[in-house]
């Protein structure tokens, strides 16, 4: 066999980048059809599994009780492959399958890329991304069914500066839209509190070795670390902070108190604080029941992905109950009027910009379990 040339290697590399999209949806002649755009393949497939589990659990409960006003709800799930173009394609797919309402991905960039299509199709869509940019779209058809970063990032910064009394905070964050946006809000909040961060360090999603960033943070003499990360990186960062002997408080995003990150970090997670939309150990009755049901059904602890998608189905059910029809305009108006709907992750009230989540919790890991210290109502 002849050896291949560099040009061939390059052209093959290009081919290797192309992904394929799998569809896992079924359309049913039911009363209300929810189209779901989530990530089932690729690097972010784990979040999609949680999202789907949460949605299926809510659906089972609602339909098990006879549906809404006697009408059943069905879902069709489309894979977005974990990227923006895939999200738009999957959105168009669920539209063509006749969805009445859509639940969008947990990743803000994907939600933002879907926004023009949502507006054009005039279909009520609940997105789970937390970026502040979602509200800035002023898209009357897009509903942010989550507490925005403006609330949670400010809560982290406030807690670090006021309650923990940190004066020289270092910020460490992923370069993705969610983490960058949140870090910006936190920086602003800290500046307003007259304790600006002494160092802001970043890493790219998927980076494993944080030695360079943490070595700089250690050398800077920071008295605390605020961090925004996805699941695996959260586990890695907690472990590497301990192995590098950095003995300062760590306040992280929700990922830091997920079961996955805690299992990875083990003892290294002890004492870590987090601002969380949801923790599986929340003792509130409605939330505890969800956590128990979820664990019984899937043999796995629930995460914020599953909780927020579960909530989204109940928010839709609430709107559907009041709208009494699957007409898109009526559903949109009913969603906009959602008020004080108690979910397992927060209480939902849509404001003028269609932002729904109202609160976050401050959590600390104690003896390996995240414990809620206080709840912060953002508005």
């Amino acid at each position, binding site marked *: *066999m*002849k*050896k*291949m*040339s*560099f040009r*061939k*290697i390059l052209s*093959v*590399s290009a*081919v*290797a980048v192309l992904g394929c999209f799998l569809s896992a949806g079924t359309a049913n002649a039911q009363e209300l059809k929810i189209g779901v755009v989530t990530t089932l393949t690729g*690097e972010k*497939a*784990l979040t999609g*599994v949680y999202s789907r589990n949460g949605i299926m659990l809510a659906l089972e409960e609602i339909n098990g009780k006879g549906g809404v006003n006697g009408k059943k709800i069905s879902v069709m799930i489309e894979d977005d492959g974990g990227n923006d173009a895939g999200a738009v394609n999957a959105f168009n797919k669920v539209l063509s399958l006749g969805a009445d309402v859509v639940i969008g991905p947990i990743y803000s960039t994907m939600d933002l890329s879907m926004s023009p299509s949502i507006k054009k199709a005039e279909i009520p869509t609940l997105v789970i991304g937390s970026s502040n940019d979602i509200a800035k779209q002023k898209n009357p058809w897009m509903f942010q069914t989550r507490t925005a970063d403006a609330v949670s990032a400010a809560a982290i910064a406030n807690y670090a500066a006021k309650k923990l009394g940190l004066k020289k905070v270092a910020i460490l964050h992923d*370069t993705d839209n969610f983490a960058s946006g949140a870090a910006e809000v936190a920086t602003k909040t800290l500046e307003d509190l007259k304790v600006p961060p002494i160092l802001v*360090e*970043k*890493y*790219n999603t*998927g*980076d*494993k*070795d944080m*030695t*360079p*960033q943490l*070595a*700089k943070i*250690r*050398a800077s003499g920071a008295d605390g670390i605020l961090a925004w990360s996805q*699941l*695996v990186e959260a*586990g*890695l960062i907690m472990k590497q902070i*301990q*192995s*590098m*002997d950095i003995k300062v408080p760590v306040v992280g995003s929700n990922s830091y108190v997920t079961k*996955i990150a805690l*299992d*990875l970090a*083990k003892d290294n997670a002890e004492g870590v604080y987090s601002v969380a939309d949801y923790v599986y150990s929340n003792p509130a009755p409605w939330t505890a029941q969800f956590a128990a049901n979820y664990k019984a059904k899937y043999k*796995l602890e629930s995460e914020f992905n599953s909780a927020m998608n579960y909530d989204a189905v109940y928010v839709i059910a609430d709107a559907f109950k009041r709208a009494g029809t699957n007409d898109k305009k009526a559903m949109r108006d009913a969603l906009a009027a959602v008020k004080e709907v108690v979910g397992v992750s927060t209480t939902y009230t849509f404001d003028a910009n269609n932002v729904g989540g109202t609160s976050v919790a401050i959590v600390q890991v104690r003896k390996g379990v995240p414990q809620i210290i206080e709840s912060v109502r953002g508005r």
Partner: protein
Amino acid sequence: MVLQLIIASLAMGIVYGLVAMGFVLIWRAVGVVNFAQGDLLMAGAYVAFTLTELEGLPMPVALVACAAIMALVGVVFHFLTYWPLRKSWDMTVIISTIGASIALKEIATLVWGPAPLSVEPIIPGIARFASVSIEWQFLVTIVIAAALMGMIFYLLEKTYIGNILQATAQDQYAAELIGIPVVVATSMTFAISALITGIGGMLISPIFFVSTTMGGSPGLKAFAAVIIGGFGSVPGAIIGGIVVGVIDTFSGAYISSTYRDAIVFLCLILALLVRPQGIFGEKISDKV
């Protein structure tokens, strides 16, 4: 801080070197780039998880068992992705390795689930000396990987088996004429390639955890190491790996942690411009 960075970059670099060696061995033997090399690293990490966390084998036994299993994986990989296609266009084999890359990830998801896993280190705890505070596993990785590299190098250069492998790599037809069973030689090359890459995966699994996508970035960086070191050269792969590891870590600390990957690949482009044949490479005209 500098010493800390040197140790971390050496550990990363030597693992890139192992993967790069895996690339080079297969390239030399059959003339194709194996796009699933990074996924063999991932496979090694999952095998290590199964042996240590699920089966509870002691570390030295697990290390040997992991090597044996990965060699077997290499042989199976050879017979599934290369051997049936050996007479066809080389592009066909490359596409088949890309297919294998996707298949390996999805198999791992099916067998071990989508959640990332953690593995106990060979020596637990943290080493503290001078201003350094680093997991022992970083040092263990450097030692074991270097020893493994030495063994493979000896095998290839000084032993009869090495001669057979090299002869087959140079000219399969001529090797066959003098009575070398080519199928044995090529499958053995794939076995060695999978073994060293898999052990690389086992070594870094306690540091960076085990996930289905963990092979992606080391695979790419090892590919850069192969080109910097010189395509087809085993010592080049090792040196290239360490160079990439050092650039990666130090650019992250002193230039920009956001653009450290970009800086690595920028250096790759510079290396191609200045010395396209790589540090130890043959002339480019021989390669094409």
